[in-house]
């Protein structure tokens, strides 16, 4: 195949999901990389909000943390943390919430809290919720970017940190969640989207070089695939060049 990695394909596919002019509440890590890539390619007017209170940040390099100085220095407005959650996220005025995940289940619920069956005695203690529960609840729609593996893609998350579609259709409305929920999960193998009838995540695009079998093997529930299953457009030279400039010397 071409000289790009599946991680690069993932980030580029995630970036493409963001429309120019959208307002995007960005988690750190993969989502931030993808959002900054989008802003430097097809979406120069993408508005980035970080939970540190930086609204309209235009970083010239990838921030390592959500509180890096470059975010404040380039923002249209820097507000307090209570304000960014109460006035900007909560009312539903943000178009896209862009999240990562440690575990994700068939109904796109997200776990970033703990692995194991006993909260008091976790097998693995993860960082926790951060801004994710309310990002997942309040943004008009949510994109999740996460590497696909049997460990990460489970039938039912061990802990619901952030609600996707709960137990299935109607749950978001019953819970009073006002955003539409996760519309797209972008992985290193392809793209998953919720089935409009069942809310179950279905493979809707396969990255070049990946196979359905690979995706099935990396998924902890019987993965259905859209038919016919399109192949993701491979990265353009421009996308790759910009991404590599952006991530030079960075972990991801």
């Amino acid at each position, binding site marked *: 195949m071409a000289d790009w990695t599946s991680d690069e394909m993932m980030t580029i596919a995630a970036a493409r999901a963001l429309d120019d002019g959208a307002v995007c509440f960005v988690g750190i890590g993969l989502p931030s990389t993808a959002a900054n890539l989008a802003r430097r390619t097809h979406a120069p007017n993408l508005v980035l909000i970080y939970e540190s209170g930086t609204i309209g940040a235009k970083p010239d390099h990838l921030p390592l943390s959500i509180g890096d100085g470059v975010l404040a220095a380039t923002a249209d407005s*820097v507000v307090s943390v209570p304000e960014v*959650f109460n006035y900007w996220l909560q009312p539903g005025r943000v178009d896209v919430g862009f999240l990562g995940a440690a575990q994700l289940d068939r109904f796109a619920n997200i776990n970033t809290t703990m692995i194991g069956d006993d909260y008091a005695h*976790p097998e693995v203690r993860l960082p926790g*919720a951060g801004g994710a*529960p*309310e990002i997942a609840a309040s943004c008009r729609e949510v994109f999740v970017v996460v590497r696909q593996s049997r460990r990460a893609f489970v039938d039912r998350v061990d802990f619901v940190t952030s609600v996707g579609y*709960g137990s299935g259709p109607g749950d978001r409305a019953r819970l009073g969640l006002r955003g539409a929920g996760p519309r797209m999960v972008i992985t290193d193998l392809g793209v998953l989207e919720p089935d409009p009838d069942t809310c179950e995540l279905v493979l809707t695009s396969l990255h070049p070089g990946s196979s359905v079998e690979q995706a099935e093997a990396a998924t902890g529930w019987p993965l259905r695939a859209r038919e016919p299953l399109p192949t993701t457009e491979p990265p353009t030279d421009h996308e790759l060049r910009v991404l590599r400039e952006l991530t030079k010397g960075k972990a991801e």
Partner: protein
Amino acid sequence: MPAATFAALDEAVAELVHDGATVALEGFTHLIPFAAGHEIIRQGRRDLTLVRMTPDLIYDQLIGAGCVARLVFSWGGNPGVGSLHRFRDAVEHHWPAPLAIEEHSHAGMANRYAAGAAGLPFAVLRGYTGTDLVAHTSNIKPVTCPFTGEVLTAVPALRPDVTVIHAQQADRAGNVRMWGITGVQKEAVLAAERSLVTVEEIVPEFEPRPGAVVLPNWVVSRIAVVPGGAYPSYADGYSVRDNDYYLAWDAISRQRETFLDWLAEYVTTVGSG
């Protein structure tokens, strides 16, 4: 109201931070009061309830040093790097001591501080709904709008015994000024019984500065001048974040032995200077 007074860091910590107290060291990636945290370790405080949105390295260090009985928080990772290993070791293996945790979302924690600052017993938000967070603390409850009947979420106010923050400047009268990402620090100070602010320097007067937040001297208890007191976090206008330190912390903190060596070399045997 009594105005803030200046003190040496070790004296201020000894005066304000007691065993068993509820203490918030705040600073959202920026302006994290590391020097004050290290002084708390040096003074051997025990059984603290530590409150902080993002425990970050500073609480990893306090937890590993055995100062902490309970942690109230919303995101306990090493930003951009990975896990906080001392925090995980305490939760997963109770080392060096069991760590009780109460966890929230950022929105919940921010609103809890805001309620404390506002003198209200609780805050209302759209939050936590449908998550498993609700099952693990009695500090998340439903509240009904008396006008629409809609059910929302309530969280109780945070009222730390002491809040500690780092700011760029104080003036001679003890007014404090910070700028850049100022996070939830104003709320955390206003919510607390008492407060300690470490600052980069004392200036004769505050020159005009965009985006500055001023805490007047009558809402601050003690100020200690500690240049670089936020390192390896940063103070906009004075220093940059030492990202390499955050990366290196992953290896230092992964094993108990390397952590204890670090603690002895860089904290315990060092004066509060």
